[in-house]
């Protein structure tokens, strides 16, 4: 996931950089009002955990490895704004001090790994909390499902950026299929780990968890055991839902037509002006195979991500207002 320099074109790097700066700037501004003093060490330790967890790669099917993203877990523990800040710090320090991910790629790396996972994961968490019972077990399950979903959202976000900023003539559909396919498996791992970690923290210090503030003592004690197997099964269910949504669009892709469209797209591109090629190299066109189909998938994926991230942002802003029913300083 830590994309290196030059993976997407300069225009996309600048655009995603602007979006990331804006969102994180807003989150920092907001955190000045909401970040309680005690939360600074908590945020630092969550960051250290995510950093450590990202260093352990677990094997995924077909020889690839995945690692934890942690955005959803951070958002549920600390609230989405601070969660996004925390993962951003992890990504930035990894780029600066460990050469993991490019410096000019920070825009899209932060967007995909911190912002989409934190706000999208938070939105999914809120949705699952509505459906699941209002108990400690429900919190754990919702965390696992949101964790898994957030990884898939992140992979979809990357594919969308590929649509606009492809540096290679590979159609969007192929990238989306491959990315989401691999990340279904990574998502299962992320979901299981997030859920189990949440369960462990919930037992010892439920007061630390931002996303479980609404539970009272009785609900907290109601801890119907949820085994690893149940979480794996629910994770697969989430993955299947995402998978079918994506494959619905991808299944009827006519290969020949796609090839022709790509060929003509590149032919039209060949008379580009020198300066066009300089910064906005082959902007968008080369990434699209079958334009209508790609746009349909991109649109659907974009709407889904925007809805979830927007919902997460909205929930974050609304949640930052002081609540009347909650004594301050708790």
């Amino acid at each position, binding site marked *: 996931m830590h994309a290196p320099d*030059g993976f997407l074109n300069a225009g996309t790097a600048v655009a995603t950089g602007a979006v990331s700066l804006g969102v994180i700037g807003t989150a920092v501004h907001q955190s000045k009002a909401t*970040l309680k003093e005690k939360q600074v060490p*908590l945020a*630092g330790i969550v960051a250290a955990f995510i950093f450590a967890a990202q260093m352990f790669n677990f094997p995924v099917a077909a020889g*690839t490895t995945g690692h934890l993203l942690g955005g959803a877990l951070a958002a549920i523990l600390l609230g989405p704004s601070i969660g996004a800040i925390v993962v951003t710090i992890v990504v930035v320090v990894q780029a600066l001090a460990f*050469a993991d991910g490019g410096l000019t790629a920070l825009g899209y790396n932060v967007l995909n790994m911190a912002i989409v996972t934190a706000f999208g994961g938070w939105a999914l968490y809120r949705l699952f909390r509505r459906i699941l019972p209002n108990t400690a077990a429900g919190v754990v399950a919702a965390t696992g499902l949101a964790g898994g979903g957030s990884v898939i959202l992140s992979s979809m976000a990357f594919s969308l950026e590929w649509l606009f900023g492809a540096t*290679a003539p*590979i159609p969007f559909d192929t990238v989306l299929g491959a990315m989401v396919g691999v990340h279904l498996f990574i998502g299962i791992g992320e979901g299981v780990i997030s859920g189990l970690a949440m*369960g462990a923290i919930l037992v010892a210090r439920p007061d630390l968890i931002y996303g479980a503030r609404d539970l009272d003592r009785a609900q907290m004690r109601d801890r119907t055991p949820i085994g690893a197997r149940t979480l794996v099964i629910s994770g697969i269910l989430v993955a299947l839902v995402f998978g079918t949504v994506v494959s619905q669009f991808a299944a009827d892709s006519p290969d020949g037509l796609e090839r022709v469209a790509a060929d003509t797209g590149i032919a039209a591109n060949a008379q580009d002006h020198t300066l066009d090629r300089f910064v906005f190299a082959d902007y968008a066109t080369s990434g699209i195979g079958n334009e209508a189909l790609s746009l349909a998938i991109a649109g659907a994926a974009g709407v889904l991500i925007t809805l979830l991230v927007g919902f997460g942002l909205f929930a974050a802003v609304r949640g930052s207002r002081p609540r009347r029913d909650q004594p301050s300083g708790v």
Partner: protein
Amino acid sequence: MGAGHAHALYVHEHTLLHHLAPEAKLAAAFLFVVAVAISPPQAIWAFVAFAAAIVLLVRLARVRFRFVAGRLLVIVPFVLFAVFIPFIGSGEQVEVLGISLSVDGLWSMWNIIAKASIGATISILLAATTEIPDIVRGMGRLKVPAVLVSIATFMIRYLEVIAGELGRMRVAMTARGYDPRWLWQAKPIAASAGALFIRSYERGERVYDAMLARGYTGAMPDLGHRRATRRDWAIGAALPLFGLAVALAAGVLT
């Protein structure tokens, strides 16, 4: 914490690059990578120039090339992806050894591999010549918000503690005959990670309280660490100026 605060990528030396103020190094590294990223891949000579500059820097920092090469392995997954592009890419095809390859695909393979390895080498050099606390200090001086800097400081302070402790727990588990390596065996790992989390948090809370009691106001006091002088900025500016000049020339000529 007896091991000092050096980290895996830091190479202890006394060179011009090691002594340059961190904020100047950070800015120079970032701007140089920007210059590399905007250069068109068709200008192969520009990338040769970038690579020459980097080789010079590596020599200057007295970092061994084998060390850099070993650390470059982090970009391998992306290089593998890039290698596949010519085979599956569309557009004009060329025959190489009887295999049909996409011309645009070859260019983008070159583009990704060249830019990724130059960018990663610059990051490796930055990390090899700057200790992590200095990097964080440099971020603070480049006007990164104080909340971010203090969270980053805490993260780095606890990273080694946590990683070390998790490693010891894992060794203890393995020594007792339990070697979890599959996903469904994750529960003991997660439970120990959870316990570790609570423990570190409570430790961090105490440390933070102690810091507050000693007058911590959200930013570490400047203990006379050298700030960037005009000389630092001048030396630091050399690399990005060279990079931007090459990038501009490459953009105009191709």
